[in-house]
């Protein structure tokens, strides 16, 4: 695969993928640049500069999304179903309740959003 990283005439960062074909001529007004280190880097002058605030925000969204997914996909089917919930022992109900609480408290973890200690789902 042949990739070329450019800044086009409008200032947009574009990764060109020519597959198995030769790379076409550089578009008019575009300039070739080194690959952007991450989606959170902005072009400042001739270098890439990381936008740490945007990176933290994006990471927070990702962790919260995963947390929400676990609540919706793992917890809700148990705790919102009266029949399934009634079948659980009191100890197991406490495990699920604690698991739900731990998930809700993920954003309050000290390492959030960079380092997450995901709680263990009850058996």
């Amino acid at each position, binding site marked *: 695969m042949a990739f070329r990283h450019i800044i086009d005439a409008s200032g*947009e960062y574009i990764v*060109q993928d020519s597959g198995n074909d030769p790379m076409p001529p550089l578009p008019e007004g575009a300039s070739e640049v080194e690959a952007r280190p991450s989606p959170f880097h902005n072009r400042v002058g001739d270098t890439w500069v990381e936008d740490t605030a945007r990176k933290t925000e994006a990471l927070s*969204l990702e962790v919260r999304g995963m947390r929400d997914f676990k609540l919706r996909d793992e917890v809700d089917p148990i705790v919102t179903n009266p029949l399934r919930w009634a079948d659980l022992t009191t100890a197991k109900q406490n495990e699920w309740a604690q698991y739900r609480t731990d998930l809700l408290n993920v954003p309050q973890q000290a390492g959030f959003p960079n380092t997450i200690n995901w709680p263990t789902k009850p058996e």
Partner: protein
Amino acid sequence: MVLTVTKPTVGGSEDSWGTTINTALDDIVLEINSNADGTNAITPNLTEGSWQISTTPITVSAAELNILDGATVTTAELNILDGDTSATSTNVADADRVVFNDAGTMKQVAMSDIKTYINASVGSGSVTSVAMSVPTGLTVSGSPITTSGTLAVSLQSGYSIPTTSSQSNWNTAYGWGDHSSQGYVTSSSLSSSLSGYATTSQTFGVSQSWQTTSISVVTWYQNTSSKAQAWKVRHNPGSNHTVRVGSSTSNYVTLDMRDGDSGEFVPIEFIVPPNHFFYLNSGNSLVSQYKLA
């Protein structure tokens, strides 16, 4: 003078012998003494080649020797005329002289005379105009040869000088021979008629295979290959997962990655035609991504 003596007469008396010998001796003594005190000059009559210095015959003639009569030349000066190559730096002044052959007569000539002659013959200001001819395709403006300025050479309209790279390409094409008889496509109408039709090699899926990739979110990608690409990507669970696909970064459609009925996030598959762009609009990283290309 010519010295002559009288010899005694054989058979003569002793007196006559004595008298004759004494007279001859007196004449000899007188002659020698008169030459020695400078009263008379010795005038030997030397013949060229018959007299010697240290066994070397002297062959110079009297006329040739007389050429040096009055000469004050030094040995060093003669050696310079003999081709001495050593040079002495000097500041040439008007009063300095050079040895000069004036129509066969050797003279000393003042540098001021030579300067006057050179100025009169080659002096500035005698050139009034100089033309410059150039090959077809070039043009000249200005003729400042007698003054300061710019003599400009430029290309005529319709002419250009190819770069080394262009010339190399031309030479390569020239080496292919007569293009008109080689079957090369030369008409634009042919390419127009083919517009919109894919060749076999451009057919989607032909010679393409699925492969894993490692692209980033929030980044525009452009398919610059001659074939369409098929993509299948899946995000981590989250929100605002969409894919933009379009002919430019400002002209695109947005594909939602959420299932319309359940609201769950699903892997999305999309096609990116040649020269089209796509963009994964999400703050989340990708769980998996595959490309048919």
